[in-house]
């Protein structure tokens, strides 16, 4: 069982009468020559790593290798619930977790790339926040990760997830699309609604450049992971309400890829432009 596009994926879901996660799991078994149990076990291990990488820095902040970030997750977590906090519930938690994963990553901790290390905070950020707030069982979140995997696979297959090729829209943008789709399935939405959410998420991040200060996966990467999780929440909520989108996910992937190829080299992970070239950033990195 295999699919090459979002259109084919939706056709399979309709034919087999099952969720996107189930189609992706069956695909892994047939095309990846593995058993259902092993695939689920491996994904459950990914969830454990995600949770640990999202929890650590909330309690004990760590300075990043490059020294540009560290402590943000703890600060945001302490701020949540205070009178001055304006982003509560799922959003607040998703932000904390997203920041935390990037802090773990930047301090040489263990993370799960999803789809890349630089965008590793988005998917666990939103899914773990939903799990906390809705008391969802681990099994449901593991399934949701297969859904996210299906969306990311289409991006890898038909576009790109490399910042050096397509900019940050290909990393955090795709991660946001993955998280949005997975969240919709987790909340009982249809496969169509999942990919509508993925399309919305990608649309909103179209054109985002990759401009890491000092060439390091730290700043503004960490902020953008929180933004990617928030954007996924916006996209998922809209899709769950029944709002449809003009542009199907396949076309949005083509669009993102075409835009990515037109982003100048300076703004594709080379640290020669964007935030990386701002005077204050150059001052911190000694050039």
């Amino acid at each position, binding site marked *: 069982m295999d699919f090459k596009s979002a259109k084919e994926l939706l056709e399979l879901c309709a034919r087999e009468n099952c969720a996107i996660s189930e189609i992706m799991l069956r695909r892994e078994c047939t095309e990846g020559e593995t058993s259902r149990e092993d695939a689920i076990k491996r994904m459950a291990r990914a969830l454990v790593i995600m949770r640990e990488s999202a929890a650590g820095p909330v309690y004990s902040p760590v300075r990043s290798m490059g020294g540009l970030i560290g402590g943000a997750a703890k600060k945001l977590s302490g701020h949540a619930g205070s009178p001055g906090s304006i982003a509560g519930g799922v959003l607040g938690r998703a932000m904390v977790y997203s920041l935390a994963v990037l802090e773990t990553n930047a301090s040489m901790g263990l993370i799960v790339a999803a789809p890349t290390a630089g965008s590793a905070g988005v998917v666990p950020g939103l899914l773990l926040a939903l799990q906390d707030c809705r008391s969802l069982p681990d099994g449901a979140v593991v399934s949701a990760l297969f859904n996210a995997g299906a969306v990311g696979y289409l991006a890898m297959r038909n576009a790109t997830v490399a910042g050096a090729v397509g900019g940050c829209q290909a990393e955090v943008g795709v991660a946001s699309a993955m998280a949005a789709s997975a969240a919709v399935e987790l909340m009982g939405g249809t496969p169509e609604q999942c990919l509508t959410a993925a399309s919305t998420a990608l649309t909103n991040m179209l054109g985002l450049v990759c401009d890491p200060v000092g060439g*390091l996966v730290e700043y503004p990467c960490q902020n953008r992971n929180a933004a990617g999780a928030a954007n996924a929440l916006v996209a998922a909520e809209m899709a769950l309400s029944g709002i449809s989108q003009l542009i199907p996910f396949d076309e949005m992937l083509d669009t993102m890829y075409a835009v990515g190829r037109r982003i100048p080299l300076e703004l594709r992970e080379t640290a020669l432009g964007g935030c990386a070239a701002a005077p204050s950033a150059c001052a911190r990195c000694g050039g």
Partner: protein
Amino acid sequence: MSFISVFDVIGPNMIGPSSSHTAGACVIAFLAHRMIAPPIVRADFTLYGSFAKTYRGHGTDRALLGGIMGFGTDDIRIRDSFDIAKERGIAFSFTPCLTETDVHPNTVDIRMENSAGDTAEVRGESLGGGKVRISRINGVTVDFTGEYSTVIVVQQDTPGVVAHITRVLSDRGVNIAFMRLYRESKGRTAYTIVESDGRFPDGIAEPLLSNPHVRDVMILEP
């Protein structure tokens, strides 16, 4: 197009911060450490391109040294690999090279020495997402990824050696996925690199070594 697994998307599980600069570097060095008899007592790394510019902030140096000691990309000991190498009595150095630009942006040359005084030099390129390519062994241009079970035969460039290799493999039921031959120059040292889908059967090295023109056999399992 090769198969994209769900774990290529939700994965790899890795020590951060970068799949190309950290995980990929670790994989290159891990492959390299299988190409010399243990124990390694010295490893010298020359870094090119983006590796040379950003290796400290990406922990590329720690990941390379970890790989030399056999650590996987998800091994938390990578963070402390400098201290662990010192404890194990492994000398190491890192030299950025910014003058040579005619290389892949994330390239490293690794020179290893073992306790017997043998040396080996390996060049690797980190291609992104933790994927890598070994592009040179002891000055000879090669090309393989380490994603498959790989056997590297070091031989003299003379008639009959390749036939010997394929006969040994076919006698033991090995299905060859890719096979390539590289050489220094005519009649000198040559490398036959065979990649297979499944693991090689145990004890495959001995019959390969039975040919007098075969000098060494290295087996890399993913």
